[in-house]
């Protein structure tokens, strides 16, 4: 059976839970978005009974070298599925073999008192993911020790935010 195609998603990624991964690095000057399929959100199907974090970690380390951190940052309901967002931090040596682009700051999506925002952009999800990394850098000693000085300086410009639902 051919699954119903969901516009805006890679081929036919379906299932009740989807993983959306942002692969980021810092080149010493600026934070950059990259990824094994280009500098944009990387979508992974989680239909199997595998823990999403274990799955994302396994796929990240199998497709990229020098993975420093893998962390979930938020979840949201989108296109009939729960989307779990992950941030994967990699060493800057990955720039070159993989395309990358500077990360552009964005305002967060804001819901009204009664409704979720009509459209949550990828930049807004990434903005929150980096705010969560800023939170982790303050709260989690392992994260703080793993990130470079350039990352710590960069994250000081973000408002720290806990894991949460993006709505």
């Amino acid at each position: 059976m051919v699954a119903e195609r969901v516009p805006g998603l890679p081929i036919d990624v379906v299932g009740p839970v989807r993983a959306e991964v942002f692969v980021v690095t810092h080149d010493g000057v600026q934070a950059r978005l990259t990824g094994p399929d280009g500098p944009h959100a990387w979508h992974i199907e989680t239909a199997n009974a595998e823990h999403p974090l274990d799955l994302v970690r396994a796929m990240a380390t199998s497709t990229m070298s020098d993975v420093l951190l893998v962390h979930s940052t938020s979840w949201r309901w989108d296109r009939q599925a729960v989307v779990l967002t992950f941030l994967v931090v990699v060493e800057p040596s990955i720039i070159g073999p993989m395309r990358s682009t500077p990360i552009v700051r964005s305002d967060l999506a804001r819901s009204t008192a009664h409704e979720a925002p009509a459209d949550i952009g990828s930049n807004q999800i990434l903005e929150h993911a980096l705010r969560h990394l800023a939170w982790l850098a303050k709260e989690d000693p392992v994260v703080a020790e793993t990130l470079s000085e350039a990352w710590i300086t960069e994250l000081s410009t973000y408002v720290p935010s806990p894991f949460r639902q993006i709505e």
Partner: protein
Amino acid sequence: MNYKLACDCGWETEGPEAELVEATQEHGRKLHNMELTFQEAMAMAKPVEDE
């Protein structure tokens, strides 16, 4: 006949049916954790018009 298939992640492939399906299955497995059947891959493919 050649076929073309484009994944929304930006990846594209083009070639004869068997090669296109094999490349698509490998891409789906490696990058999206998906197991695609031959029929599923071909359902997303478009024939390339001869010039």
